[in-house]
C-alpha cells in the first residue's frame, strides 16, 4: 500500500515543531545578518544563546520527556569540554567535528553510568545521583593535572584553536556557523527521536512508569537511553561552550549554577517541548541585557552590580515558581495559545 492511500497512517510530523525548526533555520541566519557587523552580538549573545539552547534541549529530553530530574547538566557539559580538549591535544589527527562526536559519546557513557540508579529510584531522589556526578567531576577535573595538561591556571583551551577540517573557525562567523550547524543538526535528530517509539517510551515512563512497564514499555532501557542521549547532547554543548564561546574554560564554567541555569531554561521555556529549550535559552540570555538596559535608563547609570545580580536572581526564582504553578509548559505554551488546541501540543495525523 502506498502512502497516498493511507494518509492517516503516514508518519506524524510535529507541524509546529517543524515550523519552529524551519523558522529557526531560515530566520536565524537572516536575523544574524544585520548583526554580522557587530561582533559583540555574535560573540556575546547569539553564540551563547545557541549553545544554551542545545544544552536545554539535551536536558529536556531527559527531564521534560523522560521525566528524570537532573541537577547534573553542568557535569556532562564539563565531561564534553574536557574530553574534546584531551582528544584535540592527544589525538591531533582527529578533526574537531569528530572529536565533538567522540566527546559526546564519552559523555553519553558516563551519563548512562550515573543514570543507573534511576532504575531503582524515582522522582527527586535522582538528584542525588546527578549531584554526585556534578561534584565528582568537579573534583576529578581539578584534582588531576592530566585533564588540563598541567596548565598553571587549571584551564583548558584548544591547542590549535577552533579549526574545522583545516579551516580556521576562530572568527565570529566561524564560531557562529559551527555552533548553528551543530545545533540545527542535533535539533533535527532530537525531533525524530521524540516522535519515535523511543520518544513515546520516554513520555510513557514520565507519565506513569508502573503502567508503562506493565503494558510492555522497556522502562529501564528507556531511562538509560534518555540519560545517554541527553548526556551526549550536553557533552557537545559543553565543548562548544568552552571553545566556541568562552575560548578557554575551567571547572567553574560548568559548576552547579550552570546546572541550575540549564534546568531553569527548560522550566521557563517549556518542559517536554523542543522549542521550549530555544525559548528558555533566549529568555535567560536576554533577561540580564534587558534588566541592564532598564536600570541604565531608569537610574541613568550607577546601579550596584551585586544588587542587579540579586534582582536578577529573585526574578528567576519568582518566574520558576510562577511557571510551575500557572504554566508548566512554559513559554512554549504561552506563545502557542493561538493555535488550535489539538495541534498545539501533539502531532496531528496528517502529513
Amino acid at each position, binding site marked *: 500500500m502506498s502512502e497516498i492511500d493511507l494518509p492517516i497512517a503516514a508518519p506524524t510530523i510535529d507541524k509546529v515543531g517543524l515550523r519552529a525548526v524551519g523558522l529557526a533555520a531560515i530566520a536565524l541566519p537572516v536575523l544574524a545578518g544585520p548583526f554580522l557587523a557587530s561582533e559583540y552580538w555574535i560573540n556575546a549573545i547569539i553564540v551563547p544563546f545557541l549553545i544554551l539552547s542545545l544544552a536545554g534541549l539535551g536536558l529536556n529530553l531527559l527531564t521534560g520527556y523522560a521525566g528524570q530530574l537532573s541537577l547534573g547538566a553542568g557535569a556532562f557539559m564539563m565531561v564534553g569540554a574536557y574530553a574534546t580538549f584531551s582528544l584535540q591535544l592527544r589525538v591531533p589527527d582527529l578533526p574537531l567535528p569528530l572529536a565533538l562526536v567522540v566527546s559526546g559519546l564519552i559523555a553519553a557513557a558516563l551519563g548512562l553510568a550515573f543514570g543507573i540508579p534511576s532504575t531503582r529510584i524515582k522522582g527527586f531522589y535522582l538528584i542525588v545521583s546527578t549531584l554526585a556526578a556534578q561534584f565528582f567531576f568537579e573534583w576529578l577535573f581539578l584534582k588531576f593535572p592530566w585533564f588540563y595538561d598541567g596548565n598553571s591556571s587549571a584551564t583548558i583551551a584548544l591547542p590549535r584553536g577552533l579549526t574545522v577540517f583545516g579551516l580556521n573557525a576562530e572568527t565570529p562567523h566561524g564560531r557562529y556557523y559551527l555552533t548553528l550547524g551543530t545545533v540545527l543538526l542535533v535539533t533535527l535528530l532530537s525531533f525524530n527521536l521524540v516522535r519515535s517509539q523511543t520518544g513515546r517510551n520516554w513520555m510513557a515512563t514520565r507519565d506513569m512508569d508502573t*503502567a508503562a512497564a506493565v503494558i510492555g514499555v522497556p522502562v529501564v532501557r528507556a531511562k538509560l537511553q534518555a540519560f545517554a542521549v541527553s548526556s551526549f547532547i550536553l557533552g557537545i554543548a559543553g565543548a562548544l561552550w568552552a571553545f566556541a564561546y568562552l575560548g578557554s574554560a575551567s571547572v567553574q564554567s560548568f559548576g552547579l549554577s550552570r546546572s541550575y541555569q540549564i534546568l531553569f531554561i527548560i522550566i521557563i521555556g517549556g518542559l517536554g517541548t523542543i522549542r521550549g529549550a530555544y525559548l528558555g535559552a533566549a529568555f535567560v540570555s536576554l533577561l540580564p541585557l534587558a534588566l541592564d538596559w532598564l536600570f541604565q535608563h531608569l537610574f541613568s547609570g550607577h546601579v550596584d552590580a551585586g544588587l542587579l545580580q540579586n534582582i536578577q536572581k529573585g526574578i528567576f526564582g519568582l518566574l520558576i515558581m510562577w511557571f510551575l504553578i500557572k504554566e508548566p509548559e512554559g513559554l512554549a505554551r504561552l506563545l502557542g495559545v493561538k493555535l488550535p488546541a489539538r495541534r498545539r501540543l501533539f502531532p496531528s495525523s496528517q502529513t
Partner: protein
Amino acid sequence: MTTPTRPALELKNVSLSFKGVKAISELSFRVEAGEICALIGPNGAGKSSLLNILNGVYVPDAGEIILEGEHFSRMQPLEAARRGIGRGFQNNALFSGMSVIDNAITGLSRHSRLTLVEEMFRLPRARHEERRFRERAHEVLRLFGLDRHAATVVGTLPYGVQKKVELARAIVAEPRLVLLDEPLAGMNASEKQEIAAVIARLNRELKLTIVLIEHDIGIVLELAHHVVVLDYGRKLADGPPETIRDNPDVIAAYLGSERAEIAA
C-alpha cells in the same frame, strides 16, 4: 493456540501481604483458554492486587502462577507483557500528556525492533515500523469508535472516553490474555452495553481470554462464562454464573457488603 485441556492461567495457593496484613490468602483457581472470567467481591477483597501479581507489579509471598503450562513463583512486568498479558487499569493509568493514538502505539512497544540510530535518522526500517504501528493503532481505535479523538491529548478527554482508550491500549499488542480492572466503571448504561459488547466480540472473534473485575452484577452474569468470588482475600465461590447467582454465601457476603456500602 493452546489446547482446550490446558488452562490459559492457573493460580495455586497464592498469598500476598502488605506490611504483615494479608491481602490474599492461599488463593487457587483456573481460567480456561478462551473464556471470560469475572472476579467479583467487595472493595478490598484483593481483586486488583491479584491482577497486579499477574502483571508482576506485586510479588506474592507464596504460591505459584501457571501461565500456559509454565510455572512462575513471580512475574516481572515486562516478562508478563512479553508473554502476551494485556492490562487495563482501574483508575485510568493512561499517559496523560500524550495523544490517544500515541497512547495506543505505546502499547506496541514490545514489538518494536528499532535501534536508536534508525529512529534518529528515520531510516527506512524506522519509517516502515512507524507506519505499521500507526495502522494497527488506528484499527484498534476504530473498534472503540475513538478514531476522531486520535490526535487529542488524553488528559483532556472525558472519563468514559479515557476508559475506552485504556481498553484500546490493553489489546493493541494482540495479547492472548487480558486483565481488565473495572473496565465499565463510571460509564452510563448505554456506554456499558457498548463496551460489554466489544469485550464479548473480542473474546468471541479473537479467542481472547479475559479476566475482568466488575461490580455490575447484571453485566457480569451476562458477559462471563466463569465467576470467581473473593472476600477478604479468600475465594468464596468459583463456578459458572448460574451457580454463583444462587450461592447463599455469595449473597450473604457480596450483597450484604453492597448494602453496607450503600448505607455508609
